[in-house]
């Protein structure tokens, strides 16, 4: 039998930048920091973070890692490093954004979609202005404290799931998930339209730093 090199999982997104720090995690080579990341705004590839889809007739009864899913469709909750998103009456997503590797629950309704979705974080002051060139969605309306609103709608005419985690005059944080196949061109086009605001790729550390500053971690 022929031998093969070890298989590393590949993110759908590759930035044309030089990584300064890399970590191998769950088979992915995760870029923690790029050289010359600049002062923001930033585009961070989080496609390697575990993501699960949950489908059930009574999805509210399911409690991933003993956390309650949001009761209302198009809302989300950030809790213990997880973002719990309620898509429809029967569907929810769980994005594990921070923390150590975690196994997908082996119960019936969980489906691993980590490799199927590209997940991007956009963070910085000018993110609303950049998104105005990409998405006809009312992302920045005043948010209720909890649960937060999430959005299912087009970005560059592609169906995406979006969650606004932070919006203030000085800083905004938006997470955007789309089909894996769109990931690379989605990222490239964001960098294209964000050029005027100096949007640049950043490593995962920029994402976690944002939440450390917020005291969420």
């Amino acid at each position, binding site marked *: 039998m022929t031998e*093969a090199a070890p298989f590393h999982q590949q993110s759908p997104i590759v930035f044309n930048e030089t990584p300064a720090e890399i970590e191998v995690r769950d088979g992915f080579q995760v870029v923690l920091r790029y050289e010359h990341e600049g002062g923001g705004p930033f585009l961070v590839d989080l496609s390697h973070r575990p993501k699960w889809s949950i489908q059930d007739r009574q999805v509210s009864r399911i409690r991933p890692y003993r956390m309650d899913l949001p009761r209302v469709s198009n809302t989300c909750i950030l809790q213990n490093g997880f973002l719990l998103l309620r898509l429809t009456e029967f569907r929810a997503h769980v994005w594990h954004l921070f923390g150590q590797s975690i196994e997908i629950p082996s119960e019936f309704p969980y489906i691993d*979609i980590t*490799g199927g*979705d590209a997940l991007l974080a956009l963070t910085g002051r000018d993110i609303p202005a950049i998104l105005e060139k990409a998405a006809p*969605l009312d992302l920045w309306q005043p948010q209720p404290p909890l649960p937060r609103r999430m959005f299912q709608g087009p970005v*560059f*005419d592609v169906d995406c799931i979006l969650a606004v985690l932070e919006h203030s005059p000085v800083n905004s944080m938006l997470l955007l998930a789309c089909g894996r196949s769109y990931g*690379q061109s989605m990222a490239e086009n964001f960098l294209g339209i964000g050029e005027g605001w100096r949007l640049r790729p950043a490593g995962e550390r920029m994402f976690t730093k944002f939440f450390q500053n917020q005291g969420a971690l």
Partner: protein
Amino acid sequence: MKRRSRKRLTDLETLRIDPSRRVRFRFGLRAVKGFLGDSVATALYGNGVRIFSRSIKFRRPRGLYSLNGDCANCLMEIDGRPNETAETTLLGEGMRVRPQNVRFSLKRDPFGFMDRLDWAMPAGFHLRRFHKPFSLWPFFLKRIRRAAGIGRIAPDYRSEELFDRQFLQTDVCVIGGGAAGMSAALAAAKSGVRVVLLESRPWLGGNFDHRTGEFESEVTLYKEARNLAAEIENASIRLLLRTVAVDLSGDGRVTAYRMGGEENLWDRRLINIRCRSLVAATGCTERPLLFEHNDRPGVMQVDCAYRLARTYGILPGTAGVFSVGHDEGLEAAASLHDLGMMVRAVADCRTEPDNPKLSAMLSERNIPYLPGWHAAEVKGKKGVEGVVLFSENGGRQQFFDCDLLVASAGLSPVGDPLLLAGSELDYDSRTGCYLPRSVPPGVHPAGRITGITYPGALEASGRLAGLRAAEECGASVDEALRESEAALQECPAPTRGCPELPLSGKGRKSFVCFDMDVTVKHIRQSVDRGFDTAELAKRFTGAGTGPGQGGIPGHNLPLLIARFREEAPDHTRPTTVRPPMISTPIPVYGADRIRLSRVSPVHSLLKEAGAVWDDSTGWRQAAYFAFDPAAREGIDAVRHRVGIMDAAAQGKFRIFGPDAVHVLDRVLIGGMSALSMGRAKHSFMCNRFGCILYEAVTACRGKDDYLVITKPGKGREVYQWICLHAEKEDWNFQIADLTESLGAIRLSGPSARDLLQGITQSNVSNPAFPLMGFRRLSLWDGALAVQAVRTGAVGEITFDLFMPASLMAPAWEALTAAGGPFGIHPYGLAADTLLRLEKGRFHTERESDNRVTLPDAGLGRYWHRSRSGSETIGDVALSRTAEQSGRMKRVGFQMEPAPNDGRLLKDGAVVVEDTIQGHVCLTRYSATLGEQIGTALVAEHLAEPGTILNLFEHDMDPDERRYARVVSLPFYDPDDSRMKG
């Protein structure tokens, strides 16, 4: 030119130019200067230019008329772009401006004689002349277009402008930054809702901005405008200057077009606005006064003359006559007199002004005021040399020597946004205007658009509209609303307009529409010929169909029609408004339109291998490799060695749960209940008419657990189709779209099994892994786990390997390396299509339409008829049509040798006898078989093998035919020994 050029007024508080900053530009060959803040038209006017263009039909000289871009008079070529509106284009350093639609010079155009041939061009002449004999029409059409063209673009012109697109979300969108619009925006913003304010000019203020009339004691109108603008800047209002609404709908969608400035990274931007409530405060335009030669350079509207002086510091003439129909005209006459212009007389088509103070102001300045008089004719060939005024009944006339005639019949509300939003306009006899009658919910008119003109009422009306809009967005404004309603009610009633459209003479040179050279006489001819509504007259004469749309004919057209029909104006309506409301460059609509391609996880590897792409399925798939469009290398590999194909674009679903099989039986025609674990089945999805929609391979992964694989690019459709037909049932199942999560690689060819066996310890021999089998395989000692389905799509041993998409690229590389000794070669869609054709496979996209049922396509064997209680979609229709005669049939054919034309027949050729009897679905040259083969849908009597088909393509001579012989399918390996091997 130099004669009229004079010093600008530089010390006015109302100026919007910066007299300390010169801007240099070129007009034709001449270097000229303007000031920062000038528009191209005002800079030219300030340099003495009076003729800006020549008219489209009669080649009459045309000059500055409205300053708002309402007509084509000031369309010019600016920096190589034709048809730019010089009135609204901000002057830029180094601009190159050229007049258009002119030969030799603006003053002396050799085609000027056309003006004397107006008798030969009555209304609708282009619809009646030159059409007999019809063969000559193209000849004349070409010449008419050449004579009448407005602007030319160089074939090698490349725009250096940057176009951009923006999506805005807001609660209240206010269109118009005049007094009413600003008041509305402020009132709404103070109530806490988000507000976007659109203003077409580079500054706020609207009609107040240049006016020196009194707003209230010791506050002039322009100062009030400045105060409101300052408040706007300090409020949390998103202000978009130089932005015009071009389209809107009653459900809160507004499309706007914005011009950029030096501070922007773009030049022109299309803005899609979503709002919950809309305030239309678009104000009024002036209704042109109709008299002989009303289009002469030197005739202009009140607002134009007033703004030229007060905003741009240019006195429009040395001696002027005013013929007006509203109070602003009297105010402008007094103001221009104060700035140094001689005002010979002010004729007012009304019997008295609304504000008596204004007539007193004229008396104080010794300006003759003539109530009940109006302009009847302008004297002068290339400009105004004098004006003849008529009294109301035409009984008396006076002549005035002058170089400027400021003319206006009154005001016309700009109701276009309301009409687009679904409102209707009705004639209002008090104001003499068409005013909004009914307004759809969520739309609030404010200001002069509602007929009011009193300055205090404009602001009150704006405040009220803003509060109502905010209330619709959930703001609590009850008390403020009550106060605003009371404030508006206390304001004076709308002023009286001109009682009747003043008209004198036959109207041979009284222009209703400048853009299309339509005169009063033309409108009369149109009515006489039975085209006696505004809509019909518009089409027959062309009035309002030029670049300025209905800007100049506007409300004059329905009023004229009413007059010629001897009816009251309330029997007619203005013409329909269609977007865009103003001329918008076409590239703006394609601005920054980003369409993302779906790419496979091995996209970069395929690119390195020289893939040429096919985007037809929505995925960027490799069509062929390395400049081999015939894909012979790939085909050769599949037929003799092993080929590798990127199959990630296939739709992939996992359907699982106790009722999963019911779902499959509902949509798949093949009877899935019999599918056992480890087996796969090829089947089809039909619509309720039995016509083929999709094909799928379904593999049973485990108990009540299925993997469904569909054609590339069909994943989303199939997912929706399944959900649509299962949602109403009380079935316990889950469906997961794994199209993106699973990568897929197809290995095909006689060596595919050997290759696979070399990298797995599982037994993949024919008995252990038969055709249409499903296995979970561990490759490379557990380094990669895949799900494998063995199919026979291309007629060879084929394995579809499914693995996590994130591992597909390394898997591809490892398989390519492992396949090296077997001569592995990548192949793409071109090879796949031909390989499938050789095997006689059904091509869903090319061979199915709304007529082809499963049996028609020769696929009746896939229909599982014996299910009990089945409700499979299409089952009933298939039962009824299975034995029906006279249906189209799918057949295979081989081309007969062509006598002298060696070219290949193309897809879509028709099968003919006396009539069309079918068409070619798919045809290719097969190097494997050494001949051109294909499939066709033909009438039943032509479906017998051996029948000769007569084929015709659109580019053949009418009597020419190609011939093909019907043969049995498949063309290749009829006993399936290779794929079963």
